[in-house]
C-alpha cells in the first residue's frame, strides 16, 4: 500500500494520493482550490505562471509551484498563508501591467481565467503604470487569429499543439520581454486547424475567426452532444443562441476524445444553420417539387405506399437508413419496414464498414466485434494500414501519436500517403494503393512472390514490420473503412483476419467511415440482419423482434440493394442518404428511382436523390434532435437537442413514426427515450463461431507502366454533404483538388493551382491540382467527399488503386 500511495498534510488536513501525483492534484482531490493559469488537465505540468505557489515543508525555503512538485510522504503544505496570497496577487498585477482592459470587447470575457483571477484576488487597481501593448490582431489562417496584446505567454497553445495534437504549429518567438506566440514554421499557420489552441487559451489571445464577436460566452445555451462528422464520436459542447448554433467546443476529458477535437468537430457546425437546409415538406406536382403541408405530404406517402403494397406486395417496397442519423432514427425506420410494411428490404449505405464487419464475423466469429480505444492504445504494436487515420479519424490519430511517443508503443505505419503519423512511427512505409490486403497477408506470414513490385514495400521493411508484429504481445491493426476500401473491403478485412489467425494477440479496429456506420451495422440495417446484428435466419431473434413489434417479421431475407432497385422496386423510402450520388451506377439508380411509383427522401440538404424523389421531407441535424450515435468502439454517444429544428423540419424518427401512424400503425412515441429503451432490449449480440480459416487474398495488379495510381481517401477538411455546407470547413479547402508529388508535377509541367483532368476507364473529372509532399511518386490523390468531383466518377466499382491519366487542361 505504502509504495502505491503517499500521505501528506495540506492546510492541516491529511490526504492520501497515488505516488507520482503532484501537490496541485493532491490539493484538488480534497477540494482545496489553487488558482492556476498555465495548467490544463490535458497537458503536462509546466510551471510557467507561478500562480499555484504553495509553501512546502520539508522543501526549499521559498514558495514552490505546486503543479510541478510531486507529492511526497510526510509533506506539509500550506496553501493560504498571507505571503502566498501576496505572491498570487502580485503575479496578476504584473500580468495586468501589459494586459489591455478590453473585456467588454473581448470574446473570452466570461470564460477568461485571468479575468476570474482578477476578481478572486480582488484587484481593483494596479500599483504599476500600465502599458498596454498595441500590436494589431494577426490572422494566422482561415479560422484562427491571435491578439498578442492579450497573451500572457503561458504556453498552453504551444504545448497543446505539441503534446496532444502532435503538429507543433505554434511556438514562442523572440526572447525576454519581446517574446510572442507565432506559427512555428511559416508566417501562415498551416496546421490541422483543430482549434485546440483556441480551446486551451486561458485569455482572449487565440481566437476563433468564425465565432469572433458572434456572441458573449455567458449568453449561449450549452448542450452536451456528440460530433456528427466521423466515427470517433467525440463529445461536443454545442453553444447556441436564439435558435442557431454559434460554436462547438470540447466537452470533458472522457473517452473517446479525451478532451480534444479536430477541425470538423471544432469548426464544422455551421451547416446546421445553412440557408440551403430543406425547411418544409416538398411534394412533386406537375413534375416539380413544390412546398406542401405536413398532412398533405403524409397523405401522399401513405396513399402511395398502400397502393404499392396492394398492387405489388411488400417485396416491392424498400427503405434506406443512414449512418448520418441516430440509432433511434434507423431503428424506427427498420421497425416501420419490417413490422408495418412487412419487407426485409432494409438498407444502409455504409458499405465499407458493413463489408469489413461481415467478413471479420465470418472468419473470427462474434469475438471480432468492436473493441474500445483504450485496448487500441494499450497494444504493444499499433499498425496503421491504408488510409491516413490522422485525416480520416483525426482524434484517434492524435491519440496514436501520443501513445507512440509518451507510452512507448511501437507504431508501424503502412499508409499510401505520407502523414503526420510517420514522425512518430518506428517503421513507416508507403504501400501502393490497391495492395493493402496483400501487405496484411504478407505480415501474417503468407509468402507473396514479387512483393516489392506489388506493394511498393521492400523486403527489409517488410521484415522489420513482420518481426515487430511477431515479437509483440498485443498488436492493434487499424484501418479506415472509407471510400478507398470500395471493392476491396472484404479483401482487406480478410487480410487483417489472416493476421489475427496467425497471431493470437492481434486485435482489429476497422474505423467506420461515418458517424453512425457502426450503429447501422449493430442495428441490423441490412436485408439479412436484425437488431443486434443477429442473422435474420435466427428464429429466436425473429421471434423476439416480432414480440417487441407486435407484428411478424418476414423470414425471407430482402434482396441486395442493386438487385432491388433494378428489380421489383416500386416504392423506396430513403432517410438521410444519397442513394443516387453514392451509387456505383448513378444514371442507372436515377432511372430506377424515376421508374418507381413512389420515392420518399428525407434529408437535411437537397441531393441527387431528393431531386428524383416524389416527396421530400425535412429532417433534423444532430443539433436539433435527441438520440445516440454508436462510435467505432460500439460506445453510445448521446445527442441532445440544442436548438429547435429549423422551419418545419422534424427529428427523423418522428417523421418515420408519423408516416407509420398515417399507415395505421402508431408506435405511440412522443420522444426518443422510449425508442432508446426498446432498441436496447433487442440489441443482444449473437454468439457466432467464426470459420477461423485463413484465406488467400486476391493479389493486387502491378503498377501501370505509365500513368498514375489513384488514391482516394477522405481529407481532414471534407465531411460529405453536411461538411461541404459548413462555411469554416469550405474555407480550409474551397474546392475539389487532386494532389500530386512535386517530381511528377514538374515532369508534367503542372504548377500548384493549375486545372488538371484525371481520366480513367470509368470517366474523367476536371479539378484543381495541388503539389503536395505527402503524395508519393506515381500516385495521384483525389480526396473523397467533395460534392463536385467524386472518385467514383473515375471508376464506379473500385476507384482506389485504379490506373488514371493526368493531363494539364
Amino acid at each position: 500500500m505504502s509504495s502505491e500511495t503517499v500521505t501528506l498534510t495540506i492546510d492541516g488536513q491529511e490526504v492520501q494520493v497515488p505516488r507520482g501525483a503532484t501537490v496541485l492534484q493532491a490539493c484538488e482531490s480534497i477540494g482545496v482550490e489553487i488558482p492556476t493559469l498555465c495548467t490544463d488537465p490535458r497537458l503536462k505540468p509546466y510551471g510557467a505562471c507561478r500562480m499555484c505557489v504553495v509553501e512546502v515543508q520539508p522543501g526549499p525555503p521559498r514558495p514552490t509551484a505546486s503543479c510541478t512538485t510531486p507529492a511526497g510522504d510526510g509533506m506539509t503544505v500550506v496553501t493560504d498563508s498571507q505571503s502566498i496570497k501576496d505572491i498570487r496577487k502580485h503575479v496578476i498585477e504584473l500580468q495586468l501591467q501589459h494586459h489591455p482592459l478590453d473585456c467588454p470587447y473581448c470574446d473570452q470575457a466570461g470564460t477568461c481565467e485571468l479575468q476570474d483571477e482578477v476578481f478572486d484576488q480582488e484587484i481593483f487597481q494596479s500599483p504599476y503604470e500600465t502599458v498596454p501593448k498595441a500590436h494589431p490582431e494577426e490572422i494566422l489562417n482561415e479560422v484562427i487569429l491571435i491578439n498578442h496584446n492579450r497573451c500572457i505567454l503561458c504556453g498552453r497553445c504551444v504545448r497543446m499543439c505539441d503534446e496532444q495534437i502532435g503538429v507543433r504549429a505554434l511556438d514562442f518567438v523572440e526572447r525576454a520581454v519581446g517574446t510572442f506566440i507565432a506559427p512555428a514554421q511559416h508566417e501562415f499557420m498551416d496546421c490541422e486547424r483543430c482549434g485546440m489552441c483556441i480551446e486551451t487559451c486561458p485569455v482572449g489571445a487565440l481566437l476563433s475567426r468564425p465565432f469572433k464577436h458572434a456572441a458573449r460566452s455567458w449568453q449561449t445555451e450549452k448542450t452536451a452532444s456528440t460530433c456528427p462528422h466521423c466515427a470517433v464520436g467525440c463529445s461536443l459542447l454545442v453553444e447556441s443562441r436564439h435558435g442557431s448554433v454559434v460554436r462547438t467546443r470540447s466537452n470533458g476529458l472522457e473517452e473517446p476524445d479525451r478532451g480534444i477535437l479536430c477541425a470538423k468537430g471544432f469548426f464544422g457546425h455551421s451547416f446546421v444553420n445553412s440557408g440551403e437546409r430543406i425547411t418544409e415538406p416538398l411534394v412533386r406536382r406537375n413534375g416539380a417539387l413544390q412546398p406542401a403541408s405536413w398532412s398533405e405530404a403524409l397523405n401522399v406517402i401513405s396513399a402511395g405506399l398502400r397502393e404499392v403494397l396492394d398492387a405489388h406486395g411488400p417485396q416491392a417496397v424498400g427503405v434506406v437508413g443512414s449512418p448520418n442519423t441516430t440509432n433511434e432514427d434507423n431503428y424506427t425506420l427498420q421497425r416501420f419496414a419490417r413490422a408495418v410494411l412487412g419487407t426485409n428490404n432494409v438498407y444502409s449505405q455504409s458499405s465499407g464498414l458493413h463489408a469489413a464487419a461481415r467478413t471479420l464475423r465470418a472468419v473470427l466469429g462474434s469475438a471480432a466485434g468492436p473493441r474500445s480505444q483504450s485496448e487500441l492504445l494499450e497494444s504493444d504494436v499499433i499498425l496503421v494500414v491504408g488510409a491516413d487515420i490522422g485525416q480520416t479519424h483525426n482524434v484517434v490519430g492524435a491519440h496514436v501519436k501520443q501513445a507512440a511517443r509518451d507510452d512507448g508503443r511501437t507504431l508501424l505505419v503502412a499508409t499510401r500517403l505520407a502523414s503526420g503519423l510517420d514522425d512518430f512511427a518506428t517503421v513507416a512505409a508507403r504501400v501502393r494503393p490497391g495492395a493493402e490486403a496483400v501487405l496484411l497477408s504478407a505480415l501474417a506470414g503468407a509468402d507473396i512472390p514479387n512483393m516489392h513490385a506489388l506493394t511498393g514495400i521492400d523486403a527489409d521493411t517488410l521484415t522489420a514490420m513482420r518481426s515487430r508484429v511477431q515479437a509483440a504481445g498485443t498488436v492493434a491493426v487499424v484501418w479506415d473503412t472509407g471510400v478507398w476500401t470500395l471493392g476491396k473491403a472484404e479483401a482487406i478485412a480478410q487480410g487483417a483476419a489472416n493476421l489475427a489467425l496467425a497471431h493470437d494477440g492481434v486485435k482489429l479496429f476497422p474505423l467506420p467511415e461515418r458517424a453512425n456506420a457502426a450503429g447501422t451495422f449493430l442495428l441490423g440495417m441490412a436485408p439479412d440482419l436484425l437488431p443486434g446484428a443477429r442473422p435474420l435466419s435466427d428464429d429466436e431473434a425473429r421471434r423476439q423482434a416480432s414480440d417487441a413489434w407486435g407484428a411478424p417479421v418476414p423470414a425471407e431475407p430482402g434482396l441486395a440493394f442493386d438487385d432491388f432497385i433494378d428489380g421489383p422496386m416500386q416504392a423506396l423510402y430513403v432517410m438521410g442518404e444519397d442513394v443516387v450520388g453514392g451509387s456505383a451506377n448513378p444514371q442507372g439508380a436515377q432511372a430506377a428511382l424515376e421508374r418507381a411509383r413512389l420515392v420518399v427522401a428525407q434529408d437535411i440538404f437537397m441531393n441527387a436523390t431528393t431531386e428524383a424523389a416524389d416527396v421530400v421531407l425535412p429532417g433534423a441535424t444532430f443539433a436539433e434532435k435527441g438520440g445516440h450515435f454508436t462510435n467505432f468502439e460500439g460506445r453510445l454517444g448521446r445527442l441532445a437537442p440544442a436548438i429547435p429544428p429549423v422551419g418545419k423540419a422534424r427529428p427523423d424518427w418522428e417523421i418515420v413514426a408519423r408516416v407509420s401512424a398515417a399507415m395505421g400503425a402508431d408506435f405511440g412515441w412522443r420522444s426518443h427515450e422510449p425508442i432508446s429503451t426498446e432498441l436496447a432490449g433487442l440489441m443482444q449480440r449473437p454468439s457466432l463461431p467464426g470459420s477461423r480459416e485463413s484465406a488467400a487474398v486476391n493479389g493486387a495488379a502491378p503498377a501501370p507502366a505509365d500513368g498514375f495510381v489513384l488514391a482516394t481517401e477522405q481529407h481532414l477538411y471534407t465531411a460529405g454533404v453536411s461538411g461541404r455546407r459548413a462555411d469554416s470547413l469550405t474555407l480550409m479547402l474551397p474546392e475539389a483538388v487532386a494532389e500530386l508529388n512535386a517530381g511528377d508535377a514538374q515532369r508534367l509541367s503542372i504548377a500548384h493551382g493549375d486545372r488538371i483532368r484525371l481520366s480513367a476507364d470509368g470517366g474523367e473529372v476536371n479539378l484543381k491540382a495541388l503539389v503536395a509532399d505527402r503524395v508519393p511518386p506515381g500516385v495521384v490523390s483525389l480526396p473523397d467527399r467533395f460534392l463536385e468531383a467524386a472518385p467514383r466518377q473515375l471508376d464506379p466499382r473500385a476507384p482506389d488503386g485504379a490506373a488514371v491519366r493526368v493531363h494539364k487542361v
Partner: protein
Amino acid sequence: MPLGSGVLTGLKTVLMVGRRKPSTVMYPEHVRDIGYRFRGQVGMRRDEVTGGMTCVGCGLCETACPNDVIRVDTSENADGTRFVDRYLFDVGRCVFCYFCIEACPVDALQRTHDFHLVTEDRRGLLIDGQKMIEIYENDQAYREAEQHNIGPGAAIANWFERG
C-alpha cells in the same frame, strides 16, 4: 361648534377650489412639463465619429436586464472590430430599472424623459438602436434644462447626474 358651521366650511372649500385652474390637461393636445428626474424611456447616444450608435455590442445591458428587454446581435466588422448588427429594445417589457444604463461601459445608454410610449400595435413597442438615438436627441431640451438646476431638489438632481 355652532350648528351649520360644517356646511359653511365645506362651502368655503368648494368656492376656493372652484376658482383655481383645473389640474387636468387635455392630453395629448397639451403636454404637461414633467419633473426633470423623471425616469423615461432609455435612449442611445449617437457616436460622434461614426454617426451611428455608440454601443460597442458588449452585451452587458442584455445580461444586466432583469426582464429580457434587450437583445444585441453582433458580428465582425471588416476591420476586425465588433459590429452591432442590431440593437433591439422591447419597451413593453421594460420596468425602467436602468440596470442597463448602469452596466453600459461606454455610456451609450442614457436616461431620457420620454414617456410617449403608447402605440396601437404592440410591435411598435419593439424599438431599435436608431429609434433610441432619436429618442435621446429629442430629449435635448430637457437635458439642457436639467443642467440649469430649475426648481426644488436641484442638489439631489445634480448628485444624481454626477453619479
